[in-house]
């Protein structure tokens, strides 16, 4: 069964955003730009996740990297998370008329969706009283990007959270994540 949840906005980490924007020494102008962008992006996010628990016999779990990843785990979760389409609109808007803003908004979007994933994994930990192993996503490490198709079929992402997969396996809205997360007993 697919579950769908809306998460309340996780706290914003400005340091993370600046790091994503490629700024490692923060002069007042950069920080001012960040604050302006945060103000413009405020209220433009929806925090949505859909997920399902994978049974041990799920065909996906036959793949070697997933088998290895889940081997210490008692629960196996696949999820998709998105912060919605409005941030993409802002990024597109400024991509043409102010690349500096577009860059910063892009970084804000990345920080937001990562924070959403963190919040979701923490909620799983609370619900099952277990420890979440660091999540893994298709296209990173040994997990092929082509897994996206199976994940989208399994999670009915478009209907559940409005997330779609383009022909080059690009997710739209772009500030979205699909991932596997395993839960193991707390030691």
């Amino acid at each position, binding site marked *: 069964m697919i579950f769908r949840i809306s998460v309340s906005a996780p706290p914003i980490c400005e340091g993370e955003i600046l790091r994503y924007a490629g700024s490692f*020494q923060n002069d007042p102008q950069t920080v001012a730009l960040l604050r302006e962008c945060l103000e413009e992006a405020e209220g433009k996010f929806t925090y949505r996740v859909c997920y399902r628990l994978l049974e041990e016999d799920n065909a996906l779990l036959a793949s070697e990297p997933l088998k290895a990843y889940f081997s210490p785990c008692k629960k196996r979760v696949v999820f998709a998370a998105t912060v919605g389409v409005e941030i993409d609109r802002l990024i*597109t808007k400024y991509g*043409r008329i102010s*690349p*500096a803003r577009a860059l910063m908004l892009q970084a804000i979007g990345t920080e937001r969706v990562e924070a959403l994933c963190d919040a979701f994994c923490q909620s799983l930990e609370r619900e099952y009283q277990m420890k979440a192993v660091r999540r893994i996503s298709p296209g990173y490490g040994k997990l092929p990007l082509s897994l996206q198709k199976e994940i989208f079929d399994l999670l009915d992402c478009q209907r559940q959270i409005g997330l779609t997969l383009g022909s080059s396996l*690009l997710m739209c809205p772009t500030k979205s994540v699909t991932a596997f997360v395993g839960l193991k007993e707390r030691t």
Partner: protein
Amino acid sequence: MNFREFLKENIVCLDGGMGTLLQGKGLLPGEDPERWNLSHPEVIREIHRGYFNAGSNVVCTNTFGANILKFSEKELEAILTAAVENAKAAREASSSQKERFIALDIGPTGKLLKPLGDLDFEDAVEVFAKTVRIGARLGVDLVMVETMNDSYETKAALLAVKENSDLPVLVSNAYGEDGKLMTGATPAAMVAMLEGMGADAIGANCSLGPVQLRSVVEVLLEKASVPVLCKPNAGLPKCVNGETVFDVTVEEFSEEVASFVKKGVRLVGGCCGTTPEYISNLCSKAASLAPVPLKEKNFTVISSYTHALEFGEKPVLIGERINPTGKKRFKQALLEGDMDHILTEGVNQQEKGVHVLDVNVGLPEIDEGAMLKEAVCRLQEVTDLPLQIDTASVSAMEGALRRYNGKAMINSVNGKRESMEAVFPLVKKYGGLVVALTLDENGIPETAEGRVKIAQRILKTAEGYGIAGKDIIFDTLAMTVSADNRAALATLSSLKTIKESLGCHTSLGVSNVSFGLPCRDAVNSTFFTMALENGLSAAIMNPYSPDMMKTYYAYCALKGLDENCAAYVAHAELFATVSAAPLLQKKPSEEAASELQRAIIKGFRDQAGAITKKLLATVPPLEIVNGEIIPALNRVGEGFERKTVYLPQLLMSAEAAKSAFEEIKTFLSDGEKKEGKGTFVLATVHGDIHDIGKNIVKLLLENYGFDVVDLGKDVPPEKVLEAVSELRAPLAGLSALMTTTVPAMEETVRLLKEKAPWCKIVVGGAVLTAEYAALVGADHYAKDAMETVRFAQRIIG
């Protein structure tokens, strides 16, 4: 009885969930339910029959995802044939005595449309059209477009149904907890667009339970003149003892949905989690209710992809600046295909407070149809304001209306027969609020009576096309008062008559009135006030004029349209005399650098522009470029390479430099076009829609004097070749962010190397490395934008 007739007089019971029932029958996670039409016809028939027996008047075929993106043409045909057969067999087999219809069910494609996603609008229309053509041939009674969570895709689907069948069509959207579609449209915006295009009923389904959908349904009922439909979920799924249950019970569900019927909803059913039991209970409740008669709503409304805009007491401001008439810089931008200039005009006018943007890109030297379509598409990427499509070319008008994501304003039709015959069919097909000029074959009548007479004739003709008076807004034509001192009076008096006796809204291009006079703002803003007092609903005006904006805010405050005068107070700064941008304080360490250089280094965009404008009065443009802008850019660029300046700062400086260049360009636009260093063709490769990196490269290249031709994102290899060949460009830059799009980059490089061997190719993007770049055959890999500039300088600098 046909479905349209049945809908007129009755409450229509729709069916309930399909997917959840199929899972109960063994449909596996991730398996396509549409294939079950062929593999398990008995299961599908049993479910359909269950709904007919429960009292449904309409059963939707099991074809939610049946489209050519998911299935081959052959399989699609087989699936649709089996699906319609299954529904027909169930109708035959059911014991119900009610009227029973079969709806071809159409769900979303599963892809997001451009610009947010990668599916082209026309491709989406064609995907839906294929399904509609087959379905219509198989003899369904109606079409149900459902669970659409994007307004643009909804438009594509409805257009496909309308263009490929005469079937009645119900259109239903999936709204989120925030009461909007995933891509932002409100229910009022959807009503404006869908009613304009001729949907037979409009509604909401899926995603939420009935209680959460209540507020959406209330808006639909308030705004729509056509019947409203509602098909909620049985709440949210929960896992109880390993079983999936939905958290709204049969009784709660039917109670709430029946209450919608009492409020006026005319078509009801259920979506995910509902079963024949839910529908049976709902149908018996509905049977005891009388249908609430439909009422024609008299709203004059337009919409964008996010919101609807109603014309009423509060004047609507239509920004006039996207128009080449009398604007050299804008003309130059059109001739050069400089879309960024046009987009910036759009964003700036929105910031000044207009509600609608007029879009006119007509020039004899360019292909207006292509440019208007492009401008409308691009503007919809940067602003959520409704647009007014302003063109004398009917084909350009149609191209733009097709691509417009909402209900547009259309500028214009007039009393000439030829004009009405060309424009009204487009208004009828695509929806729209059309500006009607009170002139005809005999020109513009001098008297108010003459203009009102034309207005009456226009209304009557429109009625013949099925276009109501609420969708026509009259422009009584502001003529130049310097040529005829009674001109303004005739315009004003016809405004008043049209508003009062014909009950229609009015619009004026205000600025014409002052043509040929000095201090035009004073005449315009006074005329604006007089027109408003005579019932003007909307003004096409210049929002950069403080006088006009003052008039607007003061008028609203005085008319009781601005609570606590809040908007007036908030914009009071407009009323102070505008002083020059404050200049920067000098710091001793920066003594050597000039004011302009410091503004650029610090990334102060507005100041950089203002200082340049001032300098241009005394310093030759080239001296400003070579003596100020380039040295400042170099300093920042070198800092970036030494890692003392980071990317956001580099970009802010580049934008400040760009605004300085923009002033110089405006200053020079009278004179000869200056020779650039050479053309650099830039594109994000096919299949990839990431363009931040590419835009950054573009900005820096322009700063360093290169002519950049930006082909945008998701660009096919042939298009890159075409541009490179046509311009004989010495340089091309390609960007790719995904591993899956690197093959498209390789293909583009191969094509260029074969057909345009003179062109040096530089590549970049998150997944690329120098090795990868060599592998795809590029001449150079640039790790960032500065390196691209340096490479370009080495080649043609």
